[in-house]
């Protein structure tokens, strides 16, 4: 049998069965999208959405690492720990969203806007 020619990365990605790497790619895309959202949005709510994306990107990674089906051998998976951490992150994200929305609301009450570029009171 002829040794297989070196695969092109994208091709490999498509041809190989679904593994942890695929999930990681999805997580990375989510993360990057979140960061881009945080960096570009001037609306505070948009920034909060970006944060949610970043956190969920991380959550995808945790869950992927935890899955016994995706691991090459079961011994190297995070097991239930990964899912537990993901749950924690969701919880914290909820709390954080509540606090952040409250801050945003207050900011709106005081400044009649939710533009984060106008929130520069802490400027040194």
């Amino acid at each position: 049998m002829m040794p297989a020619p070196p695969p092109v990365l994208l091709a490999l990605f498509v041809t190989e069965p679904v593994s942890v790497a695929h999930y990681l790619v999805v997580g990375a895309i989510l993360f990057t999208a979140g960061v881009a959202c945080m960096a570009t949005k001037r609306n505070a709510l948009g920034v909060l959405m970006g944060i949610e994306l970043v956190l969920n990107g991380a959550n995808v990674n945790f869950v992927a690492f935890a899955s016994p089906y995706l691991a090459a051998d079961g011994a190297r998976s995070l097991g239930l720990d990964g899912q537990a951490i993901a749950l924690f992150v969701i919880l914290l994200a909820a709390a954080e969203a509540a606090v952040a929305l409250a801050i945003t609301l207050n900011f709106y009450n005081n400044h009649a806007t939710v533009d984060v570029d106008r929130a520069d009171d802490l400027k040194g």
Partner: protein
Amino acid sequence: MDPAAQLPLLLGLAWLTPLASFVAILFFGPRMGSHGRNAAWVATAAIVTSLVLSLTAFVVWLGAHPVTAPAHGHGDSHGEAHAADHAAAAADGEHAAFRQVALRAGDAAALPGADGHGDSDHNAEAHGEPHLPAAYAGDWYTLYEGGRLKLSIGWYIDALTVLMFVVVTFIATCIHVYASGYMHDELHDVTDHEVTLADGHHLHRPGRFPRFFQALSLFCFSMLGIVIAGNLAMVFIFWELVGICSWFLIGFYYERKSASTAANKAFIVNRVGDFGMLIGLMALWGALGTLSFADSTAVGPDGHETVTPGLFSLFRPAETGHALQVPDGMVTAAAASEVATIAADHAATPADSASEIAARVPGWREAGLGRWLLVIAGLGIFCGCVGKSAQFPLFVWLPDAMEGPTPVSALVHSATMVAAGVYLVGRFFPVLSPDVLLVIAYAGAITLFIAATIALVANDIKRVLAYSTVSQLGYMMLALGVGGWVAGLFHLVTHAFFKSLLFLCSGSVIHACHTNDMRKMGGLIKVMPWTGYTMLVGCLAIIGAGIPFVIGFSGYYSKDSILAQALSFSQANPSHTILYWAVAGGAFITAFYMFRLWFMTFMGTPRDHHVAEHAHESPNVMVTPLVVLAVLAVAAGWALPGGLGVANLLEQARPAGTAEGMTGGFAFGQRLVFPAEHESHVGAVHVTATTTAFATALAGVVLAAAMYLWRLISPAGVATVFRPVYAFLAGRWYFDELYDVLFVKPTLGIARLASGIDRGLIDKLIDGLAWTARRLAGLDAWIDKTVVDGLVNATANATWNAGLKMRAVQTGRLRQYVMFIVVGTVALFVLASLAFRSSVAG
């Protein structure tokens, strides 16, 4: 009732009441009425209470020890008094709680070994036993007890104590009443015309009314403390208290330079005498280990009584028939080296050495060991009395003490301060050896002569009286010195009355004339008759006026007994006849200067019309004491038909063994004979003395009248004829100048030298050190400011500048922060993955 319990209680309360008044005025004086007006009432109430208590004690005393007239002969009539003593002694035993001490009259019962028969007192006279004075002694409170030293507050009460209490409180009462009128100027703000301030104005100060009465109360308390004291240590404590009180009162107008100087002079001169007194105290205590006058009885736990002999029975033990002998303690102290040898020989058996020492004591005593110690003790105590009683050579303070308010002068000159010295010589009389007595007699003679001559030419009315006091104190000392115990103390009592009278009269005159100078007075009898005639009574009393052998003023009796005793002494010791002539001459001079004073002040025509116009009789509050004192100045010497009189009362307190006279003395190479006092009552002596006294006094009065009343002889003419003598006397014998050259100037010289060394050497050294320290400190400050502060400031500046730079980072733009975070995180991640690639890849 039991006098042994009553007398200490009554007299103790009489003694402490003025202290209570002092404390009350000290704390609440300024709040007693406006300007402390009521302080006078508090002090007067206290002293009146004292007087009442003293009089009660006097009555109790008379109840227990009836005074009888002495039978001239050999004192046989004391039997009755003795029996009473004995009864009191028996009653004593029931009051053990009082730590009662054997009555001296009861000694025989307390000391069975002393004479061997129990019912001794009734047989005593028959056996020819000497008279023992009735006395009570004991301790109220022990201040300190350790080793041989015991300091206690105790009492020694005999007829002399009771009499002195009555005299002191009585005169003090009169003076308190008088002073409450005399001192009224102090009730409001005072402008003192004798003090000129730097700005040319006179001193203006608030009145010090309560302060005066506060000091007066303390003064009375101190004097009564001396009188009641049961031991010499207590005497010394109150002796010093009297000194400080005199300092307060003489310096009452302390803003006046003359007053503060006089107060200091009185205090310092007294310190000189007190130094001698301390030596005497140390000689007594060091050799004998006790300072208590009377024997003390301590009852042990087994009921056994141990008697500790006091000074009186150590010096005049019953074994010798109360004749003076050098006590064992002084003999062994003088024979210290032999005692040490004996103790070394019997080191193993101390009892043997003690008995051998005891056996050899009589031999040593025969050899004369310890006699000098006896003389030193006596002279030391007398030295204190010289200071207090203003005897030659320490009399210079008393005339200057006139700077105090006149009531103080009256108190100081009669009943308190100066009386203390004579009183102590009297109290201490049994311990004085013949040599000491001779010294006392001569000191008194010199004092009385010098002071009397100075009084002749003095023009200040109070100064004449001051020198007359010094002179009369000389009389008392001389009387004690020639063995006239009763005579000296009798004169102390009578003098207290007439001298306080004279001073209060002079105060009344000064109050009216606002001057002390007799040359500006004259003719005052018309405007102030009460003062004038009471003062005449005082003058007659002091010169000893009387109808010879019939009746006379108080001074007549006391001065006669002094003259008689001096005559008796000079007959026994022909080489000391000069003492008699001093007394007789002194009597003449006294009569002259006293009537010179009276004639110049009250008779003739006014010399200064300004003074005469303003003169007025003093208010009743001042005149009443004058009249009361005048009555006593007349009557103090009288004896009631039953024999009750001052002299007979004093006879009760005569120290044991002094009634018989004394012979001895070794210091001046001759044997002295001190005749018994009752021998001076014998006709030959008594008649001569009385006649002499009468003649000299009369001559003095007549001469004074010739010069100042009838103007037969011109005083100015006499002064011109005897110019050098007059100048010498007017210069007061130049004693102040002499002391100035001898003591004050050298002291000031040494002080100046010391101050020069201090300023030139020590101050310069210290100044140099200070200068160096200052320079070093300057250097230190420079280093601190430049180097240390510079470093600290540079750090602070760097931090500040860094902060300024760093604030630029804080843009406040959220999205930028997010990018920083992301880029930073990614950068960290990349760096970490680069660093740990192998391990991760593996």
